[in-house]
C-alpha cells in the first residue's frame, strides 16, 4: 500500500516553476530518502503534502485523503519537522512542545520525557536563548512524542552535532520498527544510506531517479584497477568504459555496471595479474545526479 502517491505534481510561484511533474510513491512502512541539490523542490513538495502550499496541477494521495482538503484530518495521523525551526522567543521549549502536542490531540508524556533526556534538551529555557541545534531538537521531540503513522522530515538534523545525529538515527530506526512510514529529506548522505530503504533523487523540480540504494548503485560506474600480462588494445574504446589511464600494463578506468561483462570478457584472455573493482561511493552516485553532467556520456562529474 502506498502512503504517499504523487503523480505529475507541478507547482509554480508566479513565473518560477518549482516543481515540474513530480512522480513519487512512498510505501507503507518504509523510510524513504528524498534528496537533491539546493532549490530542487524538496521542501516545496513536502509543504504541498502538508497542505500549506496549494498544488498547481497533478494528483496527490496522502494516507487516504487529499492533503489540501483533508489537511486537519490527515495531520492527526502525521508529524512534521522543518529544517529551519523558528519558535516563540518568549515561550520555553517545554511549553512549545506541550502546545504542539495539544494541537496534535495529545502526546505521549513518558516518551516526551525520555526524548528530552536522550536529546539532552533543557525544556525550561526560553526558546529565544536556544542555539540552532536546540531549536531543532524542540521540533524533533514534539514530533517523535506524537503518535503518528507518517513522519515528514525536512532536513530534520540540520545543526545537530554528531552525537545528536546518532540519537536521531536511533529514533527513526525505532519508528520504522514500529511499522511507521518516514519521508526524509536530507543533505547528509550517510544518514540517508544508514536509514533509507528507498531513495528518490529530485533535481530542478523533477524526480530523476528512484529506487533502493543498491538499485541506484547499479545505475552508475565502478572503478576498476587491473594489471594484465599483455597489452589490452581497444579497452578504452569499449562501450561503457570511461577515464582510461594507463601505466605500462596497469590500467585504471571506470565502467558502467551493464558494461562490466563485456570488459571482463575482453580482459580474461589477456592474463589478469591483479584486479580490484570498487563500487561507486554514495557521494559519487549523488554527485553524478546532482551535477550538471547528468545523462551525458563520458567524463565523470566529479
Amino acid at each position: 500500500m502506498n502512503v504517499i502517491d504523487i503523480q505529475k505534481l507541478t507547482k509554480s510561484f508566479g513565473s518560477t516553476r518549482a516543481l515540474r511533474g513530480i512522480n513519487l510513491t512512498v510505501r507503507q512502512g518504509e523510510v524513504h530518502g528524498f534528496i537533491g541539490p539546493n532549490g530542487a523542490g524538496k521542501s516545496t513538495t513536502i509543504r504541498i503534502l502538508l497542505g500549506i502550499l496549494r498544488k498547481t496541477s497533478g494528483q496527490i494521495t496522502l494516507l487516504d485523503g487529499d492533503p489540501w482538503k483533508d489537511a486537519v484530518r490527515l495531520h492527526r495521523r502525521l508529524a512534521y519537522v522543518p529544517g529551519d525551526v523558528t519558535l516563540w522567543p518568549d515561550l520555553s521549549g517545554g511549553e512549545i512542545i506541550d502546545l504542539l502536542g495539544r494541537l496534535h490531540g495529545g502526546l505521549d508524556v513518558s516518551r516526551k520525557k525520555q526524548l528530552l533526556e536522550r536529546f539532552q534538551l533543557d525544556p525550561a529555557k526560553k526558546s529565544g536563548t536556544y542555539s540552532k541545534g536546540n531549536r531543532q531538537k524542540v521540533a524533533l521531540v514534539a514530533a517523535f512524542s506524537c503518535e503518528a503513522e507518517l513522519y515528514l522530515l525536512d532536513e530534520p538534523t540540520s545543526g545537530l552535532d554528531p552525537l545528536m545525529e546518532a540519537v536521531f538515527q536511533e529514533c527513526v530506526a525505532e519508528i520504522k520498527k514500529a511499522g511507521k512510514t518516514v519521508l526524509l529529506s536530507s543533505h547528509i548522505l550517510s544518514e540517508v544510506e544508514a536509514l533509507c530503504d528507498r531513495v528518490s533523487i529530485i533535481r530542478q523540480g523533477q524526480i530523476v531517479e528512484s529506487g533502493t540504494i543498491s538499485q541506484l548503485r547499479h545505475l552508475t560506474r565502478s572503478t576498476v584497477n587491473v594489471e594484465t600480462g599483455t597489452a589490452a588494445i581497444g579497452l578504452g574504446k569499449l562501450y561503457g568504459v570511461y577515464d582510461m589511464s594507463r601505466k605500462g600494463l596497469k590500467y585504471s578506468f571506470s565502467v558502467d555496471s551493464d558494461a562490466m561483462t563485456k570488459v571482463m570478457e575482453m580482459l580474461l584472455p589477456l592474463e589478469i595479474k591483479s584486479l580490484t573493482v570498487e563500487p561507486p561511493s554514495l557521494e559519487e552516485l549523488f554527485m553524478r545526479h546532482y551535477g550538471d553532467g547528468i545523462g551525458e556520456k563520458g567524463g565523470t562529474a566529479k
Partner: protein
Amino acid sequence: MRISDFSGTGTLIRLILRRDRYLLPLWILLPVILALIVAVTFTAMADKGMQSVLAEFDKDPLVSAVLGPVMSFDLSGAIVWRGTSQMALVLGIGSLLTVIRHTRRDEETGRSELIRAYAVGPYANLTAALLLAVILNLSSGVLIALSNIALGGAAAGSFLLGGTMSVVGCFFAGIGALGVQLRENSGTARGFGVAVIGLGIVMMVLNNLGGGYTLLRWVTPMAWQRVTKPFAGNHGWSLIHFSVFAAIPVAIAYVLSARRDLGAGVLLARPGLSEAAPSLSSPLALAWRLHKRSFIGWLAGTVLYIVVFSAFSPGLSKSGGISGWLSGLGGTDWIDEAGLGYVFISIGIYLASLFAAAYVITAVLRLKKEENEGRAEMLVDKQVGRIRWMSSHLIIAALCSAALLTAAGIAGGLSYGLAAGDLCNGFWRIFAMNVTKIPPVWILLGITALLYGLWPRITALSWVVWASFCMLELVWEAQLIDWPLMRISPFSYAHYTIDITNLPLPPLLGLICLSAILTGIGLIGFRNRDISIKA
C-alpha cells in the same frame, strides 16, 4: 468552510493569551485611562459648571473645527467629545498590531508552518487572532462603560459609548486581517493599516470642519460616535450597522486567506535584483536601502496630512467667540495677534511633529530588529566597525525625520500660501514652523539611541517617553500644570503658542547639542556591550 477548518483555534487563543499577557491589559486599559484623563481635566476646568465650559468650547470656532460640536453638555458628553478620537486611535492601533503580530508575523518567521503541520485548520490562526482582538475590544468597551457609570454617566449611554469604541476597534482588527493577506511581509500589513487609520483621522477632521454631521461620519470609524450618539439620543441600532461594516474586511480576509499559500500574499512577491546596485556599497547605503520604503510611506502620509490641514486653515474666519480657555493658553491675545487659521495650522504642525517623533523612534528601533535577527552580526565582521554600523542607521533616521518635516514645510507652506492668497509670507511662516520642530524630534532620536546602546532590552521605554511628552501637552492644555513644568517636553521649545517670528533659537541649538550627546552615549554604550546573537 467546515468545522475542521477551525480546528485548534482554542489552543491558539490560549497561546496568544500566554504570549500577550502583559501587552493585552495595556491595550485594554489605555483607552480607559484616556477617558479618565479627559474626565479629570474637565472636572478641573469646570469650576463654573460643566455646562458653561462645554458651551464655551462649542462656540469656539477653532476648537469645534478640530473636535466638532459637543453633543451632550455634561461630563459624559465631555468624554465623548474630547476622548473618543484618542480612544478610537489607541484601540485601532492595538487591534491592528495584535492581529498582525499573531498572523503575518508568525507566517513570516516560519512559526505558522510548524503550527499548521499539526491538526490546525487553515482558518484557525486568523480566527484566534480576530477573536482575541474582539475580546480585547469588548473588555475595553465594558471598562469604558463601567468607568463612565462610576463617574455618574447614564448606564445606557455609557454602554453605547463602550460598544461604539469596541466596534471601532474591531473594524481595525478586520483591517489588520485584510492587510496581512496582501503581501508576504508584515511591514506591508502595518503600512496598510496605518494608512487606513490616517485616512480615518483626515476624514474625521474634514467631518468636523464641515460641522460634524456630514456623510463622512458614516464612513470614518473615528466619527462613529456622531452616529450612535451616546448620551445624546442613544441611537443604539446603528451599532448593528457598524458591526456589519466592520465585518466586511474580515469576510474578505477569510476569502483571500483560503486562496493563498501559507507564507505568501495574494499579491505575488516581486523578484529582487540579481546584483546590488553600484551605489549599495557602504553601511550607510545599506541603511538607506532598508529604511527607504517605510520612509516613503511616512512621507506620503505627512505631506497629505499637512496639505489638507493647510488648505483648510486660511478659510477659518476670525468670527469671534474664542473661548477663554484657548486665548488663555498662549498668554494674552495671542490668537488675536496671530489669526485663527494660523493658530489652527500651527496646532496641526505641532501634531505632525509628534508623529515625526514616532517615526524617528521606529527608524532607530530598526537597529534592534537588525541585531535580533542576526544581520548586525553579519556586518560587523566585514570591516564595518560597530560605531559605523549603528551610526549609519542613526544618520538615516536623523536625515529622514528632518526630511519629513522639511517636506511638510514646503508642501504645507505652498498649500497654505496658495489658499491664503499670500504665497510668500504664508510659505515662509509655515515652512519655519515645520523646520523648527526638527530639534525636538531629534531629542527622541537621541533618547532611543541611548537606550538602544546601553540597555537594548528596554528600548520600549522610548515609547513611554514619547507618550509622556504627548500627555504633558494634554495636561498642560487642561491647565493642570504650569508652563515651567511643560518645559520638560522638548516640543515646548517650538510650541504652537509661541509666535514663529519671535521663536528664540538658542534653546533649539541646545536641543540639537543635547540630542548629539545622548546619541554619542548610545554609540559608546553599543561599542562596549554584547551584540545579541541569533544562534
